[in-house]
């Protein structure tokens, strides 16, 4: 934690300054709390409503996790199809790109009609948002292997499966993780939007409800929870990434050490 503080000192200072200005500004101009609550009030509401926020938050996490799982698995399968079959690539890739022109938020109400008010409509929204960056990055990763490396393996009589397992899969992991990292932040947005449109539970649902009741402080507390949730998911993914890509982590650490010396 101390290391984190040290690494991001600038960011923390800037954030503190922003919150301070906010606090002072609201108090100075006597802005009513149902329009814009002070950061200190938001924090108070956040802590006094922790059970409520975590119960709604756990629903949102579940939706994001399911969305990542479905979108991720679908993305990997599509990436493999696109990579290994040029004719299917020509058929599928343009459609995938075109599908990104459809605003997901516009079809979210339909998804609620089809999949109901529960977990699955939100997981579907998240999955639809997540799969695109995963497909694009995974395909790039699979293509990142040099022709010479493939030549080397072919000269050793390696089968296509061996080439995939020994070279393509490990080579594609760095960009696959980039796709996941983009995806996970987007999927939190996706799940929240889904909850706005129709849900019985979740942070997005809580925000809409609180907003209607003019409990702006609770809206802000929900936003705070959402950001923390996003940060937590991103951080967890980074830890997994650093473990899976140990080789890269170590090489990078050594490089910075060398520069510092």
């Amino acid at each position: 934690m101390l290391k984190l503080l040290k690494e991001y000192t600038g960011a923390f200072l800037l954030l503190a300054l922003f919150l301070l200005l906010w606090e002072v500004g609201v108090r100075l101009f006597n802005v009513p709390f149902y329009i814009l609550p002070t950061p200190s009030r938001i924090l108070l509401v956040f802590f006094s409503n922790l059970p409520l926020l975590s119960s709604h938050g756990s629903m949102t996490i579940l939706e994001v996790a399911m969305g990542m799982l479905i979108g991720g698995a679908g993305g990997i399968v599509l990436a493999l199809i696109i990579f290994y079959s040029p004719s299917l690539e020509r058929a599928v890739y343009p459609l995938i790109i075109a599908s990104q022109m459809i605003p997901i938020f516009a079809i979210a109400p339909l998804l609620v009609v089809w999949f109901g008010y529960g977990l699955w409509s939100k997981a579907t929204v998240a999955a639809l948002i997540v799969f695109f960056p995963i497909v694009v990055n995974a395909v790039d990763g699979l293509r990142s292997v040099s022709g010479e490396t493939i030549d080397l393996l072919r000269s050793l009589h390696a089968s296509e499966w061996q080439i995939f397992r020994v070279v393509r899969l490990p080579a594609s992991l760095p960009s696959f993780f980039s796709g996941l990292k983009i995806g996970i932040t987007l999927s939190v947005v996706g799940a929240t939007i889904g909850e706005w449109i129709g849900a019985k539970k979740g942070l997005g649902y809580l925000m809409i409800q609180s907003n209607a009741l003019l409990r702006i402080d609770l809206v802000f507390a929900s936003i705070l929870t959402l950001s923390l949730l996003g940060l937590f998911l991103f951080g967890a993914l980074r830890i997994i990434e650093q473990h899976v890509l140990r080789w890269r982590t170590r090489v990078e650490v050594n490089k910075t050490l060398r520069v510092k010396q």
Partner: protein
Amino acid sequence: MARGISVIPIAIAAEAISKFFPVTGERIPVLDRVSIDIRSGSWATIIGPSGCGKTTFLKIMAGLLQPDSGRILADVGERDPRGLIAYMPQSDTLLPWRTALDNATLASEIDGRPREEARAKAKRLFARFGLAGFEALYPAELSGGMRQRLALIRTFLAHREVLLLDEPLGSLDALTRATLQDWLLSVWEELGKTILLVTHDVEEAILLSDRIHLLSARPAHVRKEFTVEFPRPRSRTAEPLVKLKGEILDLIHAEAFNA
């Protein structure tokens, strides 16, 4: 293959290899009936002006490209040369996520040979190549010379009879290069493999080879062949060696000028 007068058997031979590359609808000839015999356990070198098709020829020898005409013959007759050859591409092609040791044992893994045995063998070669202690490092943590040595170890550990090396020392500075030439020579003498080396360095060719095949400018054919009979280890400054170097360089320059 070994029929006729030759007493030492031929390890691998190229017979009238021709290759065209399609460029904007046209067929550009790259190789024009290139024939080369390589004796078992010998060191053959291909040299020629840059862009003459040396790498293309090596890839055909490695079975990675099909010739448009001609064939590759191995000591067991005509067949897929893979299984007999180990190919080392121009760049080191080390896998960045594998440790040095795991890179070295790549071929054993592909062939499904026992892991522990391969690792033990690799460790011995690491010591031989001055890489002992670096087994657990990743390629990015090694210097250029070390990476190239590692790629050579990987090639030696492929357990193939014939090694095809595409400018293995091309990217190194002169000093590292000279050291690695000595190393390569001593390992070759010890392991008794057949080597076909592609290089653009005439001195390197003369220092190392039994036979030098000089290719012409594109479309490449064998312009001239030299048998190098000076005893090894050879001195870079010995007079006959310098003379031969001059002769080959003159021919290459003439070829490059023709191109």
